[in-house]
C-alpha cells in the first residue's frame, strides 16, 4: 500500500471515530424516546412492575458477578431516584435482591419507595395500592434474612404503624425484631441490637393496650442499657452508644406509662410506681419539677374516690359531610368536640403538664378555647376493595382499583380537606372505574399522629368518648372511635 493511500485510510479512521461519537450523542435521547416513548421509564399499564426489566441486567447476572452487578444496579436505581423516575427503580430493586438477597438496605429502601414515593400531583398522597407489594417485599426480605432485627423492625414501624396504622401488626413485628441482634455486613460478626428497637416494642405494646407487657418491656430495655453501660466500663465501646441519658430515657418513658395509667384510669398503685421511677431521673429541671407536682397531686388523691380522667364522658359531637366541589374533586368537612380547653381543667395529668393553668394565666387574647392538633382520618375506596393477601409474594398490582386515605388536622373543633383527583397526571392513581365507593371519615385516639393529650382526656382506647350518632365500637373491638360512612356512586365523584 502506498503512503498516500495509508494516510487516506488513517484520515478515514479519524473521520469515522468523529462520526460515530456524533451519532452516539444523537442516539442517546432517541433511544430513551423510543424505548420509553415519553413515559416514565418502567411505567406500564398492566401494573406488572417487573415487565420492563432491562434485558442486559438479566444476562449480566448469569456471568457470576452477582454482587458486583447488584451493586451497579443499586447505583443505577439511585440515579433514577434522583431523576424522579420512580417506576424504573422497582424492577432494579427486584433484580438486586434476586442477585444479593442479603442486601438489607435494598429491601428497606425498595419497600419504603413503594409505600411512600408514588405520590399524586394534586394532594401529595402516596399510592396505597402499592402497600401490599411493599409488605410482601419486606416479608421476602425477612424470609431471606430471618436472623437479624432490621427488617422485622422496618416492617413493623415504617409499614404497619406509619402507613397502615395497624398497631397490632406493628407490635408483632417489632416484638419479633427484639428476638434478634444484627450482623456487621463488612465483618460478618454479630452486632448488638440498637436500644431504640426495644424501646419501640414497649411503645407499641402500650399502643395496643398491653400495659403489663409494655411495663415488662421497659424493664428489659433498661436492663439492656445497664448491661451495655457495664460493658463499656470494662471495655470502652463494647456496649455501643449508651450513657446515663439512655437510661433516663427508659425511666422517663416507663414512668409515663405508669403515670398515665394512674391519671387516665385512676390506678393509684400504678401512679405511685410511676412516680418512684420518675423520681429516679434528675434531669432536666422541668422533669424534676413536673414530677414533684405530680407527687403532690398523687398525695392529694390518696383516700379519695376517683376513677381517672378518662372516666368522665366526653361527647364527641362528631359530624362529617362531603360534597363534590368540581368533577373528581371532593371536599370533606366536619366538626368534632375534641378537645375544648376547658376539658383539661382539674385533670390529674394537669399536675404534670400544667397546660390548662398556663392557658388560663395567659393574656385573654392569647388564651385558646380549643386544644388543637388532633386528627380526623378519611378513606375513599371502591366499595368492594379489600387489600390483597400480602403473604403471597407478588409484584402485580391491580391498578384498576381506587383506594386512598389520609388525615386532616383538627383546629378549633372543625376540619376540612379537599381530595383533588382531577389532575390528568393523577388519572392512573384515581381510575374511578367502580360504580360505587365507600368514604369513611373517623377519629380514633390510638391512631398514629394523635397527640398524647387527646388520650390524656379520653383514654388510650377512647374510653371517655360518647356520641349519640357516630360512636363505633365494632370496627376495632375494645376501642371506641367516632365514625361516619358514606356510599358514593361514580357519578357523585366524576
Amino acid at each position: 500500500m502506498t503512503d498516500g493511500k495509508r494516510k487516506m485510510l488513517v484520515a478515514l479512521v479519524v473521520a469515522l471515530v468523529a462520526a460515530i461519537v456524533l451519532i452516539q450523542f444523537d442516539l442517546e435521547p432517541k433511544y430513551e424516546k423510543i424505548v420509553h416513548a415519553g413515559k416514565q421509564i418502567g411505567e406500564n399499564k398492566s401494573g406488572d412492575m417487573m415487565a420492563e426489566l432491562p434485558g442486559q441486567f438479566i444476562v449480566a447476572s448469569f456471568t457470576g458477578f452477582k454482587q458486583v452487578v447488584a451493586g451497579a444496579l443499586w447505583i443505577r436505581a439511585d440515579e433514577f431516584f434522583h431523576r424522579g423516575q420512580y417506576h424504573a427503580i422497582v424492577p432494579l430493586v427486584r433484580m438486586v435482591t434476586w442477585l444479593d438477597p442479603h442486601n438489607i438496605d435494598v429491601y428497606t429502601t425498595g419497600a419504603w419507595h413503594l409505600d411512600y414515593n408514588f405520590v399524586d400531583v394534586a394532594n401529595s398522597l402516596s399510592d396505597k395500592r402499592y402497600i401490599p407489594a411493599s409488605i410482601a417485599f419486606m416479608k421476602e426480605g425477612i424470609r431471606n434474612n430471618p436472623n437479624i432485627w432490621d427488617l422485622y423492625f422496618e416492617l413493623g414501624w415504617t409499614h404497619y404503624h406509619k402507613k397502615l396504622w395497624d398497631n397490632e401488626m406493628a407490635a408483632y413485628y417489632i416484638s419479633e425484631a427484639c428476638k434478634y441482634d444484627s450482623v456487621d455486613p463488612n465483618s460478618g460478626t454479630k452486632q448488638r441490637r440498637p436500644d431504640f428497637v426495644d424501646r419501640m416494642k414497649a411503645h407499641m405494646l402500650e399502643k395496643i393496650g398491653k400495659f403489663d407487657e409494655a411495663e415488662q418491656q421497659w424493664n428489659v430495655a433498661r436492663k439492656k442499657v445497664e448491661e451495655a453501660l457495664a460493658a463499656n466500663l470494662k471495655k470502652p465501646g463494647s456496649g455501643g452508644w449508651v450513657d446515663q441519658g439512655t437510661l433516663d430515657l427508659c425511666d422517663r418513658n416507663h414512668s409515663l406509662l405508669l403515670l398515665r395509667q394512674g391519671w387516665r384510669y385512676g390506678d393509684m398503685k400504678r401512679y405511685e410506681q410511676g412516680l418512684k421511677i420518675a423520681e429516679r431521673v434528675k434531669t432536666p429541671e422541668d422533669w424534676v419539677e413536673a414530677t414533684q407536682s405530680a407527687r403532690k397531686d398523687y398525695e392529694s388523691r390518696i383516700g379519695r374516690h376517683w376513677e381517672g380522667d378518662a372516666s368522665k364522658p366526653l361527647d364527641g359531637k362528631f359530624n362529617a359531610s362531603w360534597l363534590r366541589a368540581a368533577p373528581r374533586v371532593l371536599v370533606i368537612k366536619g366538626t368534632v368536640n375534641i378537645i375544648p380547653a376547658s376539658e383539661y381543667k382539674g385533670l390529674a395529668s394537669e399536675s404534670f403538664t400544667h397546660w390548662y393553668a398556663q392557658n388560663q394565666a395567659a393574656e385573654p387574647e392569647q388564651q385558646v378555647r380549643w386544644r388543637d392538633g388532633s386528627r380526623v382520618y378519611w378513606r375513599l375506596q371502591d366499595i368492594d376493595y379489600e387489600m390483597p393477601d400480602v403473604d403471597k409474594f407478588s409484584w402485580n398490582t391491580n391498578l384498576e382499583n381506587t383506594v386512598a386515605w389520609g388525615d386532616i388536622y383538627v383546629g378549633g373543633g372543625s376540619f376540612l380537606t379537599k381530595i383533588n383527583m382531577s389532575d390528568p397526571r393523577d388519572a392512573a392513581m384515581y381510575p374511578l372505574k367502580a360504580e360505587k365507593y365507600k368514604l369513611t371519615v373517623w377519629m380514633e385516639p390510638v391512631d398514629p399522629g394523635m397527640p398524647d393529650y387527646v388520650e390524656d382526656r379520653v383514654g388510650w382506647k377512647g374510653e371517655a368518648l360518647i356520641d349519640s350518632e357516630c360512636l363505633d365500637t365494632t370496627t376495632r373491638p375494645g376501642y371506641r372511635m367516632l365514625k361516619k360512612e358514606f356510599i358514593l356512586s361514580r357519578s357523585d365523584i366524576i
Partner: protein
Amino acid sequence: MIIWAIARTTVGDALRKKILQVFIVVAIGLIVLSLSFSQTLSFSSQRGASSDFMLLKSFGLGMMALAGIFISLILGVTLIPQEFERRTIYTILAKPVKRYEFITGKFLGAILTLGIATGLMGITFILTIVIKAIGAQQLSASPTLGQMLGSTTEKVAIFDWNMVWGVILVYLQFMVLSSIVLLFSLIFTQTVNFFMGAAVYAVGFMSTVVISLGGAEGANVALQLFYKTISYVLPRFDQFNIPNQLLHPETQVTNMGAYTGMMALYGLLYTLLALVAAILIFERKEV
C-alpha cells in the same frame, strides 16, 4: 470478484464448522421449545395473552442474541489466525490478491455466515410467534374453549413488523462485534481475543451501568471522564436492543424508522472503522 470469491469460500468453511452448526441447531430448537413455556409456566398464562407473547419474544430474542454472539466470537477469532495456522495465507497472498481484498473478503464471508444463521433463527422466531398468535386467535374466536382450557381470550395480532426490526437490529450488533473481533485477531492470540471480544460486548451491553458508575456519588472527575469515554468509544450494544417496544406493543413509538436507520448507520460506520483499522494493521503485518 476476488473479494466475493474469498467471501464464498469463508462461508463454506464456516458452515462446515461443527460448533457453529450446534449453536444454530440448539438455538432454533430452544426457540421452538419456547412455545410450550406459556403452558408450563403458570404465572404467564394467568396474566393473559400479551404476557405469553412477551415471554416468547423475550426468550426468542435472547436466544438469538446469545447464539449469535458466540457464533460471532468463534468465527471472528478463527477467521484470520486459521489461515496462518494452515499456511494457506501464503498461497493466497502469492496470487494477485491485495491484502485489503483478503481482509474484506474474509469479513464479508463472516457476516454472510452470520446473516444465514440469524436468518434461520429469525424465521424460526417469527414463525413461532405467528403459530402462537394463530392459536390465541382461535381461542379468542371461541371464548368457551378458552375458558375450558383456562386460557385467555385476549385478542392478539398475528404478525408484528416490529419482530422483523428486532431481528435486523440483533443482526447489526453481530456485524459490529465480528468486525471488532476481526480487528483484535490481528493483534491478540485467539484465546485473548475471545475474551477481549466478549468483554467489549459485555461493557457495551451494559453501558447504562457504565454511565451510572461515572455519575455515581463520590466518583471524581477523572473517573467520570474515564467511564464517559468508555461509554462513547465502545459500541453501544444496548441500543441495538429494543425489547420494550417489541415486548410491549402498547408503547407508542414516535419515530421507529428514523431510529432503526440511525442504528444501521451507526453499526455500518463502526464496522467500517474496525475494518479499515484491520486493513491498516494487516498491511504492515509481516507475512
